[in-house]
């Protein structure tokens, strides 16, 4: 057999291999061809029908998914011991979920979450295809997590139509999630491509090495799950549960099962530098103080997609002379004003801010009383400067300006979408939008509102650049460098004792002055003494 292949020569074998690579879609190492399963031949009317088919074989899948934040949009907050999550929390982007469910839940791994009556225990509501589709499947905003089952005009009034989803075809082609599938939600958080995170946007679907050394499609071509190694549908490495410091070697199977597999150290270990004994030693010592990301992600939003750095809701609602909403663009053609949303400041190739961080994040509780002077910190990254369990992390510092209740002094959730009578994006009226939003939230609202500056931090951890693009010493070891305001470290080049410098240079100066005077006198006396 082997002989025969040899006899055929390498060329046809190679050609056949290449051809199969070109023709066949990327295949998983799997023993199941889903297109051959009777259960998936359809036809399916609704997403729930597909889920029921999936669960016939994958009996535990729904139970597993239902235990994760992808389903609950909630998690146990270790700091407050309360429950936090998208379900209740307020952010500085689209602000809050309540009353907007049918819009926001296009990114929920479920079908039909339109309000607080959604049945979180109904297994058929789990959307398997949201993560496992390989194309031809999109959940539309406003449809509460459903894909279009009929031909519809999208966006409404645009004159463009979307074909209904072919559920059987999508179900037969399921696979492990690709960058594109994860990205279909995680790249578009905050209402658009790259808006929220800064280190996650659609440029990571097909990134060059210079953008992301791990996900580069011409390089390692990692999928998200290569690092976010998922077991039982639990995806590790959430920003809600960050491992800020991981001072260990690489994960060894069987020994380190309880460690977070998504850290850099999980593969690289905590002393990964090797170029030259002296320099490597020094860099490895830096890993006691700095997160890897601080040097290895020189800037974020590097892929050509801008991220929002500031969003001012207070200017939203302006209409043109015909009473219609409008957009304003910057000189690069990017939207910087939208009647529905207000003014934005965009950023590309943004230098992160740097903060000490030990993994604990304190989130503003939805009912917390705020200081209207602002800026209100929606989240705070905790960590004592110099602590063993803390590292200096790069973060995106995002500024918002959003409505608050001037009587109760709490942040407000507006109804922005879905409901025709109240939605801000349809009516451009704050009072109705805020009343509807707060009613859905179940929290008190006085009816009096104004806008307050808010501040939110986002971890920067993707878009890891090739080593040669990492920061150089002098980016930080200088006055006015990247870590200028960061406390708890003594940095040569940035830090000095002014008194000691005054003494030292003063001493050297006096010595110089002394020798100049002494030398001058010698020259003078020598002349006087006649050249002795």
């Amino acid at each position, binding site marked *: 057999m082997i002989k025969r292949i040899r006899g055929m020569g390498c060329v046809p074998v190679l050609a056949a291999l290449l051809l199969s690579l070109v023709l066949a879609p990327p295949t998983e190492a799997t023993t199941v061809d889903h297109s051959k399963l009777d259960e998936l031949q359809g036809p399916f009317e609704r997403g729930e029908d597909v889920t029921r088919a999936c669960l016939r074989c994958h009996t535990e899948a729904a139970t597993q998914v239902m235990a994760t934040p992808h389903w609950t949009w909630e998690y146990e907050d270790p700091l407050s011991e309360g429950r936090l999550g998208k379900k209740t929390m307020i952010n500085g982007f689209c602000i809050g979920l309540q009353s907007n469910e049918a819009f926001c839940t296009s990114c929920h791994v479920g079908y039909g979450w339109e309000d607080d009556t959604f049945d979180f225990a109904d297994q058929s509501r789990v959307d398997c295809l949201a993560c496992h589709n390989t194309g031809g499947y999109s959940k539309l905003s406003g449809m509460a997590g459903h894909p279009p089952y009929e031909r519809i005009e999208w966006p409404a009034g645009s004159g463009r139509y979307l074909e209904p989803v072919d559920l059987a075809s999508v179900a037969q082609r399921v696979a492990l999630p690709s960058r594109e599938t994860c990205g279909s939600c995680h790249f578009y958080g905050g209402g658009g491509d790259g808006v929220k995170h800064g280190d996650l946007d659609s440029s990571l679907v097909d990134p060059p090495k210079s953008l992301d050394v791990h996900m580069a499609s011409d390089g390692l071509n990692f999928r998200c799950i290569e690092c976010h190694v998922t077991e039982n549908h639990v995806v590790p490495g959430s920003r809600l549960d960050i491992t800020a410091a991981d001072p260990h070697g690489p994960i060894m199977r069987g020994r380190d099962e309880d460690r977070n597999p998504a850290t850099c150290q999980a593969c690289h270990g905590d002393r990964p530098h090797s170029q030259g004994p*002296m*320099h490597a*030693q*020094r860099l*490895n*010592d830096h890993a*006691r103080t700095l997160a890897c990301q601080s040097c290895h992600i020189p800037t974020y939003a590097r892929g050509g997609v801008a991220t929002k750095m500031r969003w001012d809701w207070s200017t939203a609602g302006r209409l043109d002379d015909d009473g219609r909403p409008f957009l304003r663009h910057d000189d690069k053609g990017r939207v910087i004003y939208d009647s529905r949303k207000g003014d934005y400041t965009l950023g590309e190739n943004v230098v992160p801010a740097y903060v000490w961080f030990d993994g604990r994040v304190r989130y503003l509780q939805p009912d917390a009383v705020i200081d209207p002077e602002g800026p209100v910190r929606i989240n705070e990254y905790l960590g004592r400067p110099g602590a063993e369990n803390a590292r200096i992390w790069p973060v995106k510092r995002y500024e918002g300006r959003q409505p608050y209740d001037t009587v109760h002094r709490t942040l407000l959730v507006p109804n922005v979408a879905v409901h025709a009578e109240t939605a801000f994006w349809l009516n451009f009226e704050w009072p109705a939008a805020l009343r509807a939003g707060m009613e859905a939230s179940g929290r008190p609202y006085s009816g009096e509102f104004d806008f307050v500056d808010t501040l939110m931090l986002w971890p920067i951890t993707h878009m890891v650049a090739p080593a040669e693009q990492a920061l*150089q*010493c*002098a980016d930080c*070891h*200088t*006055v006015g460098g990247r870590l200028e305001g960061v406390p708890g*470290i*003594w940095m*040569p*080049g*940035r*830090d*000095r*004792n002014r008194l*000691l*410098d005054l*003494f*030292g*240079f003063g*001493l*050297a100066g006096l*010595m*110089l002055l*002394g*020798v100049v005077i*002494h*030398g001058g*006198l*010698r020259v*003078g*006396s020598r002349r006087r*003494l006649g050249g*002795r």
Partner: protein
Amino acid sequence: MPRRIYLFTRFERFWHWTQAALILVLLFTGFAIHGSHGLVDFRTAVEVHEIAAYLLIALWVFAIFWHFTTGAWRQYIPTAQNLDRMIRYYVYGIFVGEEHPFRITVERKHNPLQRLAYLGVKLLINPLIWVSGLIYLFWGRLQGYLPDVIGLQQVSLAHTLGAFLMLAFVIIHVYLATTGRTPFEKIRVMITGWETHQDEDVKIEEQR
């Protein structure tokens, strides 16, 4: 008649000039790291500083060994004798054409002021720089073994203090090297090893 004496052996001259070059390199790169000038970038400065430091340490270890095996360490035993005459010479005599009060011999190469100054360098400045520099270099590993009051800041300040003292020493030392009969006389001795004595010098020497 002039008499020539072989004052500095080949090793002493090699030691002196190598040390001089390394100290200048260390001062230059050190103050670049400190942020006092930007004539060389931080990383290059750090790397050159470290290499030069290791070379200097090696040289010093060898020189210490040499001093003890040859007994040359006795050259640095301090003496208060005639110290006043030395000071008087440098603040007064040198300007009125007095003869230098000290006569060099192979057994006593350094005048009392030099002895004191070099001993200060060897016992105060060098150890300060060595110890603080080595702690600095191996901070990552030593940190855990040091008392809490010693942070990188204290180590850094001690090292910088040492550097300033060394800088002051270098300025004075270089200047005083020009105070021979001609500005280059003493420097020439340090290069060739040969000191030239005038006849009357020897007489004075013998009278003492």
